[in-house]
């Protein structure tokens, strides 16, 4: 497999099929009156050598999407293809066989809780290989050492348990565990949020190197937007189970086209508050609803963000589809062309940027 160039603008098209294709997936968790639609019409393509950042708040469905991709949750509608193979349609033995192959690997937030505390690092990294049917001890040792080398850990950690190594080392062990089975797609669920700044940067840099050296596709779930800005090519913003914006990271983070993306950016704490915050396109005040009452009596079909959106208008009573607004860039907002100007006009003093009744 050859690594595509990391630039999404050139990596995306050119006829090559995406490594991962999530096609209009709906996921419902629970049954009967407890049934809760967690994902609605999610479309996501990931190409080899690409890093996609998946952001959204708690309960937006980020983790459910990850679990659906690895086959721990079945979609109610839609399908998931890995290198063209519809893995979501596999059942029983075929699904287990596919999982054992280990093409998709997960890395979790807190390695102290996701790694077995009683196993040594060597056993943890080897486990996936054994599950895959590898029995040759020498081969296992060789692969374990090479996986640890890829994350810059040396043989001294082999006999330690997760409790005996530092947080950054632990997270590298969980990445090595994933790499040992030679995956094609790595899904990292908040891989760095438990780490200190320096260690966090180290792990992010490591992921960046791996996608180049191994042609890995990596999906990073994170709520820390500014660390994604350091390495991701593309950012996908989820809100209440729907993708509201999907585009190249440098474009999205300079001119967000969905008000929720802009709100996430404005909420991130900044070290520049003592000087002018020219790094943010909008201030929080321009993006928050000021009236506390229920927005637009959001019916079941309304835009998912309408209740929190200061720019919601009559059209927003219907969920907008994801529409292209640029090369590889799409947004689900009826007013994606107008709201930025409305927010800007509220810059000086006015806190209520847009009367609800105006319909654009």
């Amino acid at each position, binding site marked *: 497999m050859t690594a595509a160039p990391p630039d999404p603008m050139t990596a995306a098209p050119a006829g090559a099929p995406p490594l991962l294709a999530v096609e209009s997936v709906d996921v419902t968790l629970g049954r009967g009156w407890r049934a809760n639609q967690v994902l609605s019409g999610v479309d996501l393509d990931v190409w080899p050598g690409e890093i996609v950042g998946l952001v959204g*708040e*708690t309960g937006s469905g980020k983790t459910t999407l990850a679990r659906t991709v690895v086959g721990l949750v079945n979609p109610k509608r839609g399908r998931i293809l890995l290198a063209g193979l519809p893995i979501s349609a596999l059942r029983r033995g075929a699904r287990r066989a596919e999982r054992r192959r280990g093409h998709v690997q997960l890395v979790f937030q807190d390695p102290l809780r996701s790694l077995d505390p009683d196993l040594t690092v060597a056993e943890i990294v080897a486990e996936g290989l054994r599950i895959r049917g590898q029995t040759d001890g020498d081969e296992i040792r060789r692969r374990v050492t090479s996986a640890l080398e890829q994350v810059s850990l040396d043989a001294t950690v082999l006999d330690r348990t997760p409790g005996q190594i*530092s*947080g950054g080392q632990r997270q590298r062990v969980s990445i090595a565990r994933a790499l040992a089975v030679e995956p094609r797609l790595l899904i990292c669920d908040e891989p760095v949020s438990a780490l*200190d*700044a*320096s*260690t*966090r*940067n*180290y792990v*992010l*840099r490591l992921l*960046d190197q791996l996608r180049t050296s191994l042609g890995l596709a990596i999906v990073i779930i994170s*709520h*820390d*937007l*500014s*660390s994604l*800005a*350091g*390495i991701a090519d593309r950012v996908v913003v989820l809100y209440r189970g729907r993708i509201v914006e999907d585009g190249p*990271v*440098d474009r999205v*983070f*300079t001119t967000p086209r969905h008000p929720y993306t802009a*709100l*996430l*950016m*404005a*909420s*991130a*704490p*900044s*070290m*520049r*508050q*003592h000087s002018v915050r020219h*790094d943010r396109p909008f201030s*929080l005040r321009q993006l928050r609803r000021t009236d*506390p009452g229920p927005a637009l009596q959001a019916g079941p079909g309304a835009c998912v963000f309408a209740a929190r959106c200061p720019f919601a208008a009559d059209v927003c009573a219907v969920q907008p589809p994801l529409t292209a607004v640029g090369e590889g860039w799409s947004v689900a907002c009826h007013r994606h062309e107008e709201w930025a100007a409305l927010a800007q006009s509220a810059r000086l003093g006015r806190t209520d940027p847009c009367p609800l009744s105006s319909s654009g």
Partner: protein
Amino acid sequence: MAIDNRDPLPDLAPVGTGPRSGEVLRLDDLHISVHGGAATAVRGVSLQVRPGEIVGLVGESGSGKTLTCRATLGVLPPGCAVESGLVSFGGVDVTSLSRRGWERLHGSQMGAVFQDPASYLNPAIAVGPQLTEVVRVKLGLGRRAAHRRALELFEAVGLRQPERVFRQIPAELSGGMLQRVMIAIAISCDPQLLVADEPTTALDVTIQAEVLELLQRLRDERGLAVLLVSHDLAVITQLCDRIAVFYAGEIVESGPAEEITRRPRHPYTQALLRVASVGDFRRRELEVIAGQPPRAGEDITGCRFAARCPVAVPECEAGPVRPVPVGERHEARCVLAARAMVAS
């Protein structure tokens, strides 16, 4: 929101009417031992918190910021103890306070908020009664007055529909709402000091912004002093008036937030600023600080950062490094910063 109908506890100056000048909290050369005295994890920490001031403690995990916080609250974990030094709250040394003495301070004069609000609330009881219990015990309010007070507080911390929240159990509230409830409980008796240990780490970024705004508003409106602990330098700089940077159990630099972020003097602060998520969204080089911090309690004669310091000179490891003033209420524990001050 001063409450008049309360019965001040004996021996303590009535809160809110007492002097709000001078210092609320003063730590002087605080040493904290861990593992039953086998190692010293906090060595020589000194800092002051004035009324209406938000002081931020920042540093990597294991740098001693949380232990310092817990010593301030008198709730050190088992095996940890204040070895030497002074913790003075409202002019009184509290290091040798009895259990009863602490009970008088907790809640009524010091409030605390931690990272995971759900684990500090009783999951089986509605949050309202958990607040009224505090004001009834600490302030001696009657049932009705306590209920009124709870609703006022819920409103003050930005909970909409306080009546409804009052009757809800923790599981029915979101993380951001629970943290607001915790803050309401912490400030319920109008304390002089709020200790907030990673109060927003578990929250979504939009909720984090709201909770930080709330802390700022409480400071502005009530003159509340806040000791805020966070590993996120961006959170600290956004909120704090003063910052103390912890490294391996010591404060390596402390001073006004703006000074520290604009002109950091200690090489560790400089490194921390370079690696911090600066809250901007441009593609940038992800820098790391080479090396590992020393283990807690490791005996190092000189500067504890010297082994990782890019500009270290032999003098750094020769002997203990004292903090030197490098500006207005701004100190750095660095040989080179001291030299630069002498030269200028």
